[in-house]
């Protein structure tokens, strides 16, 4: 009998000591496992030139100003390219947390452009396991250059080009993210009949965080079309840069062999070569404004 009462006592004592841990266990048993969605795979909606998996959240307006200077190999007379500047301005807005749209204008071929990007899958762990995030990107570009031959019948549709991309990204850990970007570019009119209307390319890009606010990014597009027959020598675009985040701004400093800042331009019309030193220095500045407040937030 004494043994039994001791047994009871020994049961009671630990209950008293570990009561709070018991409550914590009770809490864990009673709360369902949450879905942990991966956030901030990339700092910005661009890896460098091309789009990243990231979207603007609902109600957020991203004002972007980007520059690419002349090539470094133009020497000291051109201040290593800084005397010439090529720029692109855009306004980009998150309609919902999974859909964003943007419009832009660049002085490369006096092009207006518009795009939509929506997210199909989000990388997650916990209650739902999803290894990658997937977004679909599509854009239209209209070049507004004067017609090279105004005497013939020119159609507006000849100014148009279209891009479709599937963005597949994974954030492997806190500092390393990688993205594959199968891309398709259609140009309604090309310079000569040697140039294909349809281009197929595979993009690959990644970022490596050096500190919490600085990351090293690289991006490459491999164009599958044979380049030797085209009317111009075209190279695959390679970009290397740094993301620098300061509060509401993200600065991206970039070295690239392409001058254009939209997909149609850098995938299919990159004429610079890293080997020859045709490297453009440039930057993207992104400033985010909150137009609509977060709906998920509730006030007590």
């Amino acid at each position, binding site marked *: *009998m*004494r043994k*039994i*009462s001791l047994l*009871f*006592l020994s*049961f*009671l004592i630990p*209950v*008293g000591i570990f*009561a*709070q*841990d018991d*409550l*914590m266990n*009770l*809490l*864990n048993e*009673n*709360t369902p496992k*949450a879905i*942990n*969605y*991966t*956030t*901030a795979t990339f700092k910005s909606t661009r890896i460098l030139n091309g789009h990243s998996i990231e979207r*603007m*959240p*609902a*109600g*957020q307006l991203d004002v972007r100003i980007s520059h690419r200077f002349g090539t470094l190999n133009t020497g000291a007379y051109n201040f290593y390219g800084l005397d010439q500047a090529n720029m692109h301005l855009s306004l980009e807005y*998150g309609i919902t947390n999974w859909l964003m749209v943007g419009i832009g204008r660049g002085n490369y071929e006096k092009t207006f452009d518009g795009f939509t990007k929506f997210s199909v899958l989000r990388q997650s762990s916990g209650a739902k396991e999803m290894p990658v995030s997937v977004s679909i990107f599509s854009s239209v570009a209209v070049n507004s250059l004067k017609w090279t031959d105004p005497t013939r019948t020119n159609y507006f549709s000849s100014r148009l080009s279209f891009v479709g991309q599937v963005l597949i990204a994974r954030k492997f850990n*806190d500092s390393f993210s990688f993205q594959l970007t199968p891309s398709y570019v259609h140009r309604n009119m090309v310079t000569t009949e040697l140039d294909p209307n349809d281009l197929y390319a595979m993009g690959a890009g990644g970022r490596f965080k050096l500190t*919490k*606010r600085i990351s090293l990014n690289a991006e490459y597009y491999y164009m599958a079309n044979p380049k030797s027959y085209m009317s111009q020598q075209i190279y695959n675009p390679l970009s290397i840069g740094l993301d620098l985040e*300061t*509060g*509401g701004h993200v600065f991206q400093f970039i070295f690239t062999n392409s001058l254009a800042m939209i997909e149609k331009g850098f995938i299919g019309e990159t004429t610079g070569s890293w080997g020859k030193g045709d490297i453009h220095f440039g930057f993207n500045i992104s400033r*985010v404004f*909150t137009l609509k*407040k*977060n709906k*998920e*937030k*509730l*006030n*007590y």
Partner: protein
Amino acid sequence: MKRLSLLIFLLAIAITVNAQKFMTKNGFIGFFSHTAMEDIKGDNNQVAAVLDISTGDMVFQALIKSFHFDRALMEEHFNENYMESDKFPKSTFKGKITNLSSVNFSKNGTYDVTVEGDLMIHDVTNKISTKGTLEVAPEGINANAKFNIIPEDFKIIIPGVVREKINKNLEVTVIMKYAPLAGK
């Protein structure tokens, strides 16, 4: 001897029966920082909490990613740069009401309480002590508290560029509406 074991046995049963636990899965914890440059407010209304009124033990558990902000960018920075919520997804509190005797759980009303315990944020645990109120209501128990924490105490580093935008002391508000936990 037989009586003693019977007594212990009865006592054990009595404790189990009277061990009234109250729980919520959508408690509120919010923090607020005010500076001349910016107001920052992060709200989480999915906090899970249990209160044991027989012992005064209380625990909270909050997912860091469930804190929401007015600005999406603030939320991203909160998770990425300060809380490192992929590494440290949860924040917990394990504590005790130290003046449990001053609360009469059989009589509806609001009672002042003092709570002491371990607050774990960003994988750093600090002892805190705060005053709050406990309201015994027909549908359950409501708990309210307000206290201040210093981010640096939890090894949350705020760099110089944004230091003047974030108050050194963050005001934390806790609002729990507990309901009896059936069967426990």
